[in-house]
């Protein structure tokens, strides 16, 4: 029984380790879905902007820095949104 189970486990493991080479024909990396990463970046930038606004409203960020960071984050966000518009999938 132990021998049979060990044999079965070995065969299953060997098969699963070799299988990707049989089914995927050694192609180059499929890039991760770009839109997912872009949505991720969008959410992060929106959250950073929300935090910045709260920090400014509660007096933790000076007006000068608020303008500077907001412009920087805004530029990054518009770049992400443009890319998303061009690659809706």
């Amino acid at each position, binding site marked *: 029984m*132990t021998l049979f*189970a*060990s044999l079965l*486990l*070995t065969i299953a*493991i060997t098969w*699963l*380790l*070799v*299988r*990707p*080479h049989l*089914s*995927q*024909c*050694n*192609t*180059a*990396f*499929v*890039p*991760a*879905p770009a839109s*997912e*990463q872009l*949505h*991720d970046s969008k*959410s*992060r930038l929106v*959250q*950073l902007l*929300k*935090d910045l606004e*709260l*920090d400014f*409203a*509660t*007096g*933790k*960020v*000076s007006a000068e*820095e608020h303008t500077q960071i907001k412009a920087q984050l805004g530029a990054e966000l518009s770049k992400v949104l443009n890319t998303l518009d061009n690659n809706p*999938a």
Partner: protein
Amino acid sequence: MAEFGHFSLCLAWICALVGIFSGVYAGMTRRESWFGTVRNATWLTTLATGIATAVLCYGFYVSDFTNQYIWQHSNRDMHWAYRISALWGGMDGSMLLWAFMLSVSAALLAALCGNYPRQLMPWVLAVLNSSQLFFLTVVVFLTNPFRYIRAEFIPPDGNGLNPLLQNPYMVSHPPMLYAGFTTLTVPFAFCLGALFAGYLSNEWIRLTRLWTLIGWCFLTVGIILGGHWAYVELGWGGFWAWDPVENASFMPWLTATAFLHSVMIQERKEMLKMWNVWLVVLTYGLTVFGTFLTRSGVVQSVHAFANTDVGWVFLLYLGIIFTTTIILTWWRRSELRSARAIESLLSREALFLLNNVVFLSICFATMWGVMFPVLSEAVTGNKQTVGVPFFNAVNVPLFLLLIFLMAIGPMIAWRKASWSSLVRTFRGPFLLSLLVCVLLVFVGIVDFYPLLAYGLSLFSVLTVAYEFSRAMRVQRAANPQGSMLSDANLLLRRHRARYGGYVVHIGVAIAAVSITSAMAFKTEKEFSLSKGETLEVGRFALTLNEVGGTRNDSYEAAVATMTLAHRKDRSPITTLYPERRFYFRTQEPTTEVALRIGLREDFYIALAGMDESGERVSFKIFINPLQVWLWFGGLVIVFGTVMITLPELRFKRAMLGAFARQEIRQ
């Protein structure tokens, strides 16, 4: 069955090895087929390690005493839950559990890695598999838990588990710690993977934050459970003794906490890249170092496993980790340069950096205390130990500084704060805290450290309250028609991570007040009573009603029945039953403490012994002020961490769903 368990472990070892090579090859050649292999190898390592763990659990459940490890750590009298938890009661099983939990983290990451950058993930999985390979090497070749008893006669019953470990906290505390340690391996894998792949944007940091938070939360819960176990089981009235094994889990907790703070600076300001790499590596290194401490026999501890000869393997592995990191960080040094410098010492960046330095100082002081006996023996030939007074003398002032930084750090502006804004922000909380400190002096609390600790803890809670009220005012101004409740809800939902962090800080402040009270105002008394006698202590009166005996198959016990009453009017509060047990198998006495938990204080009593005639019974009592608030503070910390973690988890789930839909479309 045991052969099958060991065979599975060998297969897991091979899979981890395949995972390393296929991961490196996939990272270098960027071939999808090899990436498929490393993912499969990671899952298969989990499967095979899981099978081995299940086999050992089953062996414990059915009391298979042909297995030496099962015979050593369990017996038939034990409850089935303790029989299974005996799996991590010894060195061999605990290493297997570690390997299994690490493989679960690795499998989860392999399942999620479709959402992570493909050029990074083969390297990350390769590093994770190398960590698995190390622990599996230890389990397979050095601490194999599937060894047979090589004798004609198989004992009908086992040795049993130390009675102190037969406790619900011991069922949950070690797995929680291991879950923390193994989850914190994932950020380490991301870190080294990013260094190998040259993928050193801020993304790897952001991707690992969720793992670090979850690992940190497990570690926090594990440490709290361990403290509670020590409190209710060991009978010395405390929860933390700076024992080397306690310190082994505390040191990575400190560096992980430092990382959780400094990661915010990298995300927002692209600073401290090199610092963060080293914090992550140090955290992982300290988990391995902790394992070395508890299993090598270099330090003496009540919790340490038996002296073994596996210590050198851990040291070798630590050497490999740090050498690899030094080489990689040197190679990638130009990409790890900070984009900006700290512009003012009066800024959030500077204070977060100072907070990191304090965390590392506490970690260093703790390590110094732990290693001092070893170092002193190496240098002078005499082993000298440092005790609780050393740790308290060094770490208490540092902790107080941390509480101060915890109060002001999150409220101060990024980049540069002005003195006028500081005065505006902190004037109210500071004056109120000062007022409370003055009141405390009037009620008799005049010692410097307790007064400072109470003042700073209150100050940190008040700054959070003040910050929330300011944010609420802004929210109300933007939405004058909304109700207070809906505004608060909106604010919390929009900035859940930020307020989750503040909740954690409040939990820390509550715990700090409790720890201060326990350290400064604990009452401790040893005394003996005869039947009918009463002792007055504090605001309590304690009467010994009777002493009885009880006996079962495992132990015999002396049980005292005592009435706890108010000292003033002698009105009864509760009846307490402290016990002293003598276990036949281990031939050791243990105490079962009796505890009356209250919001003001815990009344804690342990039966220390009896005289020859059995007439006089000696006891040890502790009155621990505000003790229950330590556990409540721990709950608040966990709640805050869940508050931060949940949105990220939800976001990841949404990403997974979207990815799955895309797969289906393809």
